[in-house]
């Protein structure tokens, strides 16, 4: 840790992991509700648990991105953060706003929450991933703007590297596309069309820029390969990301009322979307093989390689599985989508955050890497969580295929609920995998509390 203002990243990482744990707990609740329908009903109906699960995911990943930026930008710009005080303030504003929102979901019926929080003035609630009340949405915009002001000023007064530039582009893009969540027309087709501008252009557009920048930074630090080579690859990868990802939004415009040509544009360009993820995997392994130094933090190296592989599998392969229009006609709105969602989100955005946390946390605590035993524990956590997500995805894929076969194929298709009853076994298996994931996460958290007597001195 070369600059003391990088320390502001620590609370962000701690909050991120805390919310991550919350997200997994609610994921387990929902997983159990899939098999025991009235579990915790009416205290926590499924839709409330889902809101908490998805919103905690997005909030903790945003905490992770912000923490990573606060760690990475000063080191890249070779200057102190513009205003650590502002960073601390925003941390508390965002944490309190997030916590209040979650409490609001859990304690008050959603309709009452809506009327209490001015949803009648400007209706932006009730849409997937964007269920936050208006004050929370406005709070997110404020936090994002102050955060962006803080790190942009730091870069402006310091060294400008490609990595910090790409990270800024990604984060500014994130803030700009979030503004579409305030646009909620009464025409459902228009509402959905621009809803995807927030959701898709986030996770298959600007977030991949953030992912690329964070991965490039960690790889430079771990492998010691010179910056020029890594930044060259970074630009090529994110060029392919935007070239394929922007028009790739079309794979969401097959069945929502938009014209038919989207089926051609959406299929063709989203079929190319796995290419940047494949290049990122080749890039990660290539850099680690050509490393010029043996970095003591083996766990972070494993996370970095894992990010490449799992994002290619989850977002690339599982995405391609159901992105072509003729296939999507049958898989749209089934468990196949949920399977892709789990592995893609974990493989790309959860793992890159854990890569950064695994690399930066020892630094923030004054050593270049944790002790051997702590790293072994962290690697156990890596494999438990990763294999568990692979299992969840496989089980949900099987469930999805059976669901399609029973509910949408053949001459006598089953009703939704009858089909769901036929695939309960996969939901049980998914729930069990979720428990394994929880064990992995607990081990991951525990690895931070290992005694680090024999750890190396700070770099």
């Amino acid at each position, binding site marked *: 840790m070369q600059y003391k203002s990088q320390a502001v990243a620590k609370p962000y990482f701690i909050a991120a992991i805390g919310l991550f744990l919350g997200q997994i707990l609610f994921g387990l609740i929902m997983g159990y*509700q899939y098999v025991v329908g009235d579990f915790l009903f009416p205290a926590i109906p499924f839709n*409330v648990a889902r809101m908490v699960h998805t919103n905690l995911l997005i909030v903790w990943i945003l905490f992770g991105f912000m923490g990573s930026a606060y760690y990475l930008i000063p080191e890249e710009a070779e200057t102190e953060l513009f205003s650590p005080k502002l960073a601390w303030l925003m941390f508390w504003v965002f944490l309190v706003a997030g916590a209040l929102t979650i409490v609001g979901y859990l304690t008050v019926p959603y309709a009452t929450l809506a009327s209490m929080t001015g949803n009648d003035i400007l209706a932006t609630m009730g849409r997937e991933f964007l269920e936050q009340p208006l004050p929370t949405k406005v709070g997110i915009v404020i936090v994002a703007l102050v955060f962006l002001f803080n790190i942009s000023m730091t870069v402006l007064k310091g060294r400008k590297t490609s990595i910090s530039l790409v990270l800024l582009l990604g984060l500014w893009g994130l803030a700009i596309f979030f503004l579409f969540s305030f646009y909620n027309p009464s025409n459902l087709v228009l509402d959905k069309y621009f809803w995807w501008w927030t959701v898709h252009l986030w996770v298959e557009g600007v977030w991949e820029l953030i992912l690329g920048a964070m991965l490039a930074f960690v790889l430079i630090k771990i492998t010691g390969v010179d910056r020029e080579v890594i930044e060259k690859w970074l630009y*090529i990868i994110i060029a392919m990301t935007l070239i394929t990802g922007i028009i790739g939004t079309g794979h969401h415009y097959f*069945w929502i009322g938009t014209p*038919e040509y*989207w089926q051609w544009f959406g299929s063709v360009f989203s079929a190319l979307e796995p290419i940047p993820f494949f290049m990122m995997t080749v890039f990660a392994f290539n850099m680690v093989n050509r490393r010029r130094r043996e970095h003591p933090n083996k766990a972070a190296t494993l996370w970095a390689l894992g990010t490449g592989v799992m994002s290619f599998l989850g977002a690339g392969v599982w995405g391609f599985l159901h992105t072509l229009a003729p296939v999507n006609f049958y898989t749209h709105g089934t468990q196949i989508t949920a399977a892709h969602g789990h592995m893609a989100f974990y493989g790309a955005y959860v793992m890159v955050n854990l890569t950064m946390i695994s690399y930066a946390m020892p630094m923030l605590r004054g050593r270049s890497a944790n002790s051997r035993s702590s790293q072994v524990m962290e690697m156990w956590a890596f494999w438990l969580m990763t294999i568990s997500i692979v299992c969840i995805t496989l089980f949900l894929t099987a469930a999805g295929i059976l669901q399609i076969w029973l509910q949408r194929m053949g001459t006598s298709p089953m009703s939704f609920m009858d089909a769901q009853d036929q695939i309960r076994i996969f939901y049980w298996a998914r729930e069990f995998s979720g428990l394994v994931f929880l064990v992995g996460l607990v081990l991951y958290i525990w690895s931070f509390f290992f005694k680090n007597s024999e750890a190396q001195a700070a770099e």
Partner: protein
Amino acid sequence: MNETFTKAMARNIFYGGAVFFFLLFLALTFDTVQTLPKRDHRENITDSVVRGKHIWETRDCIGCHTLLGEGAYFAPELGNVYKRRGGDFIKMWIKGQPTGAPGRRQMPQFDLNDQQLDDMVAFLKWTSEINTNNWPPNIEG
């Protein structure tokens, strides 16, 4: 991969490619917004449909159901439920929740009055008439 490809050129391709395809995306969006009126029968959006959408959102139905295939996969697709079951069944079903059957998936009771139930049905009826390139594959949705 030494100087055979330079970072400057890679950066140019990133900016050129991003701007190019974003412009193409805007052009396609412009065409879509122009063509949509002929596909989504927006002339049938009555006040009741608008109120229905508001009720749909403020009860977070998307948290369990899918609408035109997008949402949660816990409960049936409702984009074509009006065609599958008809308005009266929908109203009766919403009023009759939760079933309380042990172990079954439960839908909360939203205490909607008759006006709100009619608005909800109007919204679901309008949604079922959008030209979705004949998705879903069958009436089960």
